[in-house]
């Protein structure tokens, strides 16, 4: 090795040589190297060796001016055009137009597309919540009053009371960092004792309630710090406990079940508890010695924390950063703040606050703005707490960067509640005031105050006969119905909007003014026309009701909105620093958000108008689309170009909705996280892997009508990026030509079902003419090319839009003529249908058309009732739960439980003994159950009537594979014709087989050897010829068993990576497999009869990961939707799914994905589709201790669907759910059948364990 590695390490030469020879050989093969280079975007150098590679070089685009022929040889008209094109369209970019956006959801479209739309209708938006914790004063008797507790949830934006939860006294509450769960502790919440209640923070629905075995700390009049703390994901709750004397500690409870987990000693500290975001450390403030203690939660030991001793006045946490701010002081001059990084377990800053403050010590009047930039401290006088006379009339606000006071908020109404709660606007806080009747302690009315740096203090809400103890700020994800597509009214009309500029014939002012017109696309009739300024830019609102226009006039730049029905100007606002592209480039610098509420203008301060400068500050100006009012701006630090903000929806991985920018020069995609108002650019590298493996540039782009999907064409590869998820799907377009060379124009049909790609035809390309002569039409479900439009006319403009019918496009050809005075142009707008003859819509003289948009407007705004909702599911739909029973007494068993999913009633259960398993026959008549005999005599297979659970027959079986504790995928499968039952089995060390049973009587028919050994699941084909063995969590392709020869037919080629999930349609014809290709998710659909891959899609998912070790994949019964659990693989080897993605199987791209959010983390091995094809059942198993300290496993089956929040379906105590499946059972009772024992088969044999080979011989010979 010394000749390989030169350092001064002394190595025995013999050993060096020995190890070098044994370990230092081998390397990647040429084929592997080739694949790696393809993935890295590198290509081999022509004629080069393996060591010579280069990156692809993007070839130059066709010249706009003809080069093959001398200019003089061109016809006069064309030469003139070419000259002008060089001047006016010199930078006709490769990207396509912002497509016209339509509100025509109700018209046309096939059922598949309708289903897709339906799938994306329900989204979530984040709403600000304020929880008010209060004591309610009841009946008075003398000086005594009945006291109860209450928690009220407010929606901050509307001020509406969302729900109220009444509970016992001494109430306290805390919210999980994700805002999903609200925990309430109160005396009397569990009988007369202290109890803890977990609540769905969104709805106020109680999830569970448990008595607290240990006494909770009660502060006098509840005027102390909170007694609760919650881990970041809500999985643990920490409750301050006491013996009623002077001993204090913390009790840890399971946030999913309420089970007490352990006691954490705090050395009697009790003045506030905080959990680090990584859930590794618990911090407790000590009021006795004013210290902060840190406790390692894994070891339950103290962490050395060099925190100073301060007279603690309060503390607050910035959740995202995990910084804990402790405000304290030792008198007038000693006030300061200590900042602790809770993850790093270190004091990261100590600062004096620079002014004399005296925090209201016994109130927790400290709050941090959500962005961490401001610290709010309520000032007051320390007065005897028992008199409840502590109050604060002033809140001072510090900048946490400079620790300078940046404002004081004075309030006439004193703050007497315990807490401040920072609002999401980062400039205001909520506080409370309790007014007491003179001479008594009975509250009459309390107020919740909103104190802002930018507004006069105001009363947010009032509470009668309540004393507000605390206010808690949080956020919650609320499902919102996307704006319901307006059904097409009887009287609507299509309008074609033409945005153009006029060309003057004077040479010194070629472009003089802009114009916006609305035309009848059939007759060319002009409905209205509006004159505009130069450098006109425009975008249509998603609902088609408004056209937003930016232009430049003698009085500067303006942004304004036009009513598309009348052309009337709705509002107008001046703007500065607007950027624009060269007219005719097709690049709009305007964008509108998916909800139509905000218009975004790309701007550059210090640039020179037209987007060219490399210097200056790039930013987006945002305006209220309804009023034109300026809202805010967002910095973009890197590239400049057309930009969109991701739709108002979940955008995992980003704190704020990211900005997508198609960069002007590189044509690459940048994603900007605008959190905290500071642009943070994520380079396009994040998409190199999935989006542009061959090139970093986008040749053309178009937005989907709902503004959710961004389609990018790079060469002939198309990427669909779901901007709400930062995920992309790629497909290879079946184009005849290299689109990168053909200047593609893109347009999407209003329902997203058709993508139109215009490109230079061969003649134009060969002659270097920038004239689009053909339009290819792709079906966005199959990505097959479904047609081609020969335009007849040569489209010379980048203006390109689909018609409302979704089956045709509009394009423009322009004829430029040189005149004695300058240039004359005549633009012709063409209607190009997929089926039918092209037609001319209109001709515009002296106008160059820049943009086209198509949409409908209401002539008669009559409404049409929406279709009735889907009927309720049929009564015979069942959910089957296979569970392991873990009895507290140590007895283990198994059970298969059947639920009626319509009534949620328990239909029946079957005790199975340990290692249970079950499968339903495809006709819904039979439920086959496998289990082990509790007496240890072996395994048993039974056939049961699926309707009633009554046993039809049972036989002993041997050598079926048993997963650890029964956990794992099912080992059973039934043939589609119902005649055979397959059991995945082992025949000895390293040898696997499939046993085939006759379902008539349980007879073992055949044993198939040579089966892959893995965590396998079996899928039979409908023609009963093939059986697929899918290995989960393995990098093994599915094996096909030929059921006619009962031998392996080999593995299915074309499936790589680690298989993460498998599910089949109910008829077995399609098998869906998810696999992880180098951390990308690939979805493969197998035609099980044909033994071929029917479809394959790559999904780039930055936000979530497919889970390798859970088979969280399910198909709805009608096959229309695919459900996939996504989450994280945890270091402890126990993965959890945090949400369920739902695909529309008709389209299979990220655009059809909707996320369903479970109540908690999912960790079961399966999902089961709901009977309505729109929902899914999932499992959460939790393990802990019951109040008596005994081990307790709890299986929570939850349901989640498109139409409602997730909710618990069933909770099985002392159970661990192993598998779920659903199906429709037959209502027809089966005739009794002869059990196998009566016809004398396998059960009469006595065989030792693990000798299936013997069994095979007997069975085969015996038959």
């Amino acid at each position, binding site marked *: 090795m010394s000749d390989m590695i030169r350092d001064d390490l002394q190595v025995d030469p*013999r050993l060096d040589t020995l*190890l070098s020879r044994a370990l*230092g050989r081998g390397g990647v093969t040429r084929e592997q190297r080739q694949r790696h*280079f393809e993935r890295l975007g*590198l290509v081999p150098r022509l004629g080069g060796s393996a060591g010579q590679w280069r*990156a692809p070089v993007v070839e130059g685009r066709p010249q706009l001016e003809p080069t093959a022929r001398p200019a003089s040889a061109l016809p006069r008209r064309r030469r003139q055009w070419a000259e002008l094109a060089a001047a006016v369209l010199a930078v006709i970019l490769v990207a396509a137009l912002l497509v016209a956006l339509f509100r025509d959801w109700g018209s046309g479209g096939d059922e598949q597309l309708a289903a897709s739309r339906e799938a994306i209708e329900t989204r979530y938006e984040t709403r600000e919540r304020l929880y008010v914790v209060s004591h309610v004063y009841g009946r008075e008797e003398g000086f005594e009053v009945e006291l109860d507790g209450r928690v009220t949830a407010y929606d901050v934006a509307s001020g509406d009371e969302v729900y109220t939860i009444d509970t016992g006294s001494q109430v306290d509450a805390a919210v999980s960092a994700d805002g999903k769960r609200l925990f309430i502790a109160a005396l009397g919440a569990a009988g007369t004792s202290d109890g803890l209640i977990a609540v769905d923070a969104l709805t106020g629905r109680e999830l569970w309630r448990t008595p607290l075995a240990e006494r909770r700390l009660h502060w006098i009049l509840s005027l102390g710090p909170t007694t609760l703390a919650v881990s970041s994901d809500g999985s643990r709750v920490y409750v301050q406990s006491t013996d009623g004397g002077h001993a204090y500690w913390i009790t840890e409870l399971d946030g999913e079940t309420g089970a007490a987990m352990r006691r954490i000693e705090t050395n009697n500290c009790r003045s506030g508890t905080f959990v680090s975001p990584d859930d590794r450390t618990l911090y407790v403030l000590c009021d006795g010695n004013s210290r902060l203690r840190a406790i390692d939660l894994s070891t339950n030991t103290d962490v050395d924390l060099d925190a100073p001793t301060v007279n603690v006045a309060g503390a607050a946490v910035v959740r995202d950063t995990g910084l804990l701010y402790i405000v304290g002081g030792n008198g007038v001059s000693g006030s300061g703040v200590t900042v602790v990084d809770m993850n790093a377990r270190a004091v990261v800053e100590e600062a004096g606050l620079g002014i004399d403050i005296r925090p209201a010590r016994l109130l927790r009047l400290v709050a941090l703005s959500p962005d961490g930039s401001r610290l709010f401290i309520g000032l007051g006088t320390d007065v005897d707490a028992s008199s409840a006379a502590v109050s604060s009339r002033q809140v001072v606000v510090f900048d946490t960067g400079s620790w300078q006071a940046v404002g004081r908020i004075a309030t006439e109404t004193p703050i007497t509640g315990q807490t401040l709660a920072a609002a999401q606007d980062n400039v205001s806080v909520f506080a409370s005031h309790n007014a007491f009747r003179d001479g008594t302690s009975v509250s009459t009315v309390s107020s919740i105050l909103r104190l802002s740096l930018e507004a006069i203090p105001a009363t947010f809400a009032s509470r009668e006969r309540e004393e507000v103890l605390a206010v808690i700020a949080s956020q919650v994800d609320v499902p919102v119905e996307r704006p319901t597509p307006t059904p097409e009214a009887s009287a609507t009309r299509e309008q074609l909007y033409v945005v153009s500029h006029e060309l003057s014939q004077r040479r010194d002012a070629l472009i003089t003014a802009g114009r916006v017109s609305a035309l009848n696309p059939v007759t060319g009739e002009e409905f209205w026309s509006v004159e505009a300024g130069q450098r006109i830019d425009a975008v249509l609102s998603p609902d088609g009701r408004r056209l937003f226009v930016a232009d430049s006039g003698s009085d500067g730049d303006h942004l304004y909105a036009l009513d598309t029905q009348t052309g009337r100007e709705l509002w107008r606002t001046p703007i500065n620093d607007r950027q624009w592209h060269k007219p005719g480039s097709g690049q709009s610098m305007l964008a509108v958000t998916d909800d139509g509420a905000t218009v975004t203008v790309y701007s550059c301060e210090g640039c020179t108008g037209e987007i060219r400068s490399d210097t200056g500050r790039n930013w987006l100006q945002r305006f209220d689309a309804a009023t034109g009012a300026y809202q805010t701006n967002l910095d973009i630090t890197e590239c400049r170009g057309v930009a969109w903000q991701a739709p108002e929806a979940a955008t995992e991985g980003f704190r704020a909705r990211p900005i997508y920018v198609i960069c002007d020069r590189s044509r690459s995609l940048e994603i900007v996280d605008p959190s905290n108002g500071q642009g943070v650019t994520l380079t396009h590298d994040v998409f190199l892997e999935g989006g542009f493996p061959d090139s970093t540039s986008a040749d053309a782009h178009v937005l989907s009508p709902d503004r959710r999907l961004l389609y990018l064409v790079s060469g002939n590869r198309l990427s669909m990026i779901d901007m709400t998820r930062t995920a992309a799907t790629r497909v290879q377009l079946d184009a005849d030509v290299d689109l990168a060379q053909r200047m593609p124009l893109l347009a999407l049909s209003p329902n997203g079902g058709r993508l139109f790609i215009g490109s230079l035809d061969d003649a134009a390309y060969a002659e270097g003419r920038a004239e689009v002569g053909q339009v290819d039409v792709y079906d966005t479900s199959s990505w097959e090319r479904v047609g081609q439009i020969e335009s007849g006319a040569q489209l010379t403009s980048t203006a390109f839009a689909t018609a409302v019918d979704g089956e045709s496009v509009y394009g423009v050809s322009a004829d430029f003529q040189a005149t004695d005075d300058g240039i004359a142009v005549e633009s012709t707008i063409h209607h190009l249908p997929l089926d039918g003859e092209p037609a001319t819509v209109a001709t515009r003289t002296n106008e160059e058309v820049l943009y086209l948009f198509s949409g409908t407007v209401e002539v008669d705004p009559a409404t049409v009732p929406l279709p009735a909702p889907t009927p309720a599911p049929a009564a015979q739909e069942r959910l089957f739960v296979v569970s392991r029973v873990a009895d507290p007494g140590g007895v283990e068993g198994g059970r298969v439980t059947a639920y009626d999913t319509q009534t949620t009633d328990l239909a029946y259960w079957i005790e199975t003994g340990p290692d249970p398993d079950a499968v339903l026959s495809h006709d819904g008549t039979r439920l086959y159950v496998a289990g082990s005999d509790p007496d240890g005599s072996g395994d048993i297979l039974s056939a049961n009537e699926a309707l009633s659970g009554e046993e039809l027959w049972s036989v002993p079986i041997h050598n079926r594979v048993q997963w650890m*504790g029964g956990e794992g995928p099912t080992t059973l499968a039934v043939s589609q014709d119902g005649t055979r039952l397959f059991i995945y089995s082992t025949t000895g060390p*390293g040898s696997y087989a499939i046993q085939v049973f006759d379902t008539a009587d349980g007879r073992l028919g055949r044993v198939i050897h040579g089966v892959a050994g893995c965590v396998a699941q079996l899928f039979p084909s409908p023609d009963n010829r093939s059986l697929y063995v899918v290995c989960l969590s393995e990098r093994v392709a599915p094996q096909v068993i030929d059921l006619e020869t009962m031998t392996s037919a080999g593995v299915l080629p074309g499936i790589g990576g680690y298989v993460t999930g498998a599910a089949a349609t109910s008829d077995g014809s399609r098998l869906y497999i998810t696999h992880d290709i180098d951390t990308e998710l690939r979805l493969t659909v197998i035609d099980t009869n044909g033994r071929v891959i029917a479809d394959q899609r790559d999904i780039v998912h930055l936000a979530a990961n497919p889970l390798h*070790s859970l088979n969280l994949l399910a198909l709805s019964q009608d096959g229309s939707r695919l459900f996939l659990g996504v989450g994280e*693989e945890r270091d402890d080897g126990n993965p959890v799914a945090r949400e369920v993605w739902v695909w529309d199987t008709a389209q299979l791209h990220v655009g059809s994905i909707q996320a369903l959010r479970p109540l908690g983390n999912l960790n079961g091995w399966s999902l089961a589709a709901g009977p309505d094809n729109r929902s899914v059942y999932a499992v959460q198993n939790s393990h802990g201790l019951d109040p008596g300290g005994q081990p307790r496993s709890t299986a929570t089956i939850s349901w989640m669907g498109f139409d409602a929040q997730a909710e618990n379906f069933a909770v099985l105590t002392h159970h661990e759910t192993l598998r779920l499946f659903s199906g429709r059972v037959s209502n027809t009772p089966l005739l009794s059948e002869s059990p196998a024992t009566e016809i004398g088969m396998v059960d009469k044999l006595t065989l030792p364990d693990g000798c299936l080979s013997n069994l095979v011989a007997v069975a085969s010979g015996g038959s």
Partner: protein
Amino acid sequence: VNDLSLDRQASGSGSRVDVSDDAALVAAACGDRREFAILYERYADRLYRYALARTGSDAAADDIVSETMVAALEGIGRFDPDRGTVAGWLFAIAARKLADRGRRRSRARRLLGRLRGHDGADEDALETVIRGEDAALVRRLLAGLSKRDRELVLLRYSAGLNSVEIAEALGISSGAARVRLSRVLRRLAAELGDDP
């Protein structure tokens, strides 16, 4: 990165390259992706051998090399030559990828481990990579090492890293890497001394 000015064999082909320009190559690749190809050629085989020794699976090693290279290319702008060597950086990425892979497979492996009749398909990965006429001897030598010590040996002899680079790959100090490696090799040499 240039401190060591090391020469080392780039691959099994026996060609010799100067790695002192590693940092320059990274810088060049920041501006021109094609330059990354040279880095790939320089390190792919060594990454592969290391991954193969860790996983025992050709397919997995193939994946690890691919994932490592893609991650390196994506993050090439973040490589800081003042903080370490290119080799240490690349192998640290590979080590993380291997750890991720281990997490992904852990539950399935647990299931298989309890599977009746299962013979432990995840046999010692090293068994599959030790080659040559002295394979049995090397197997015996390495069998006595802890997992941590084996890792050191692999990084040195499969990946061809020196002690500084090993330290960077493992996130430990170079002194610790050097001392640990010396001890391991001395122990192996002592065991070897008894062999004919």
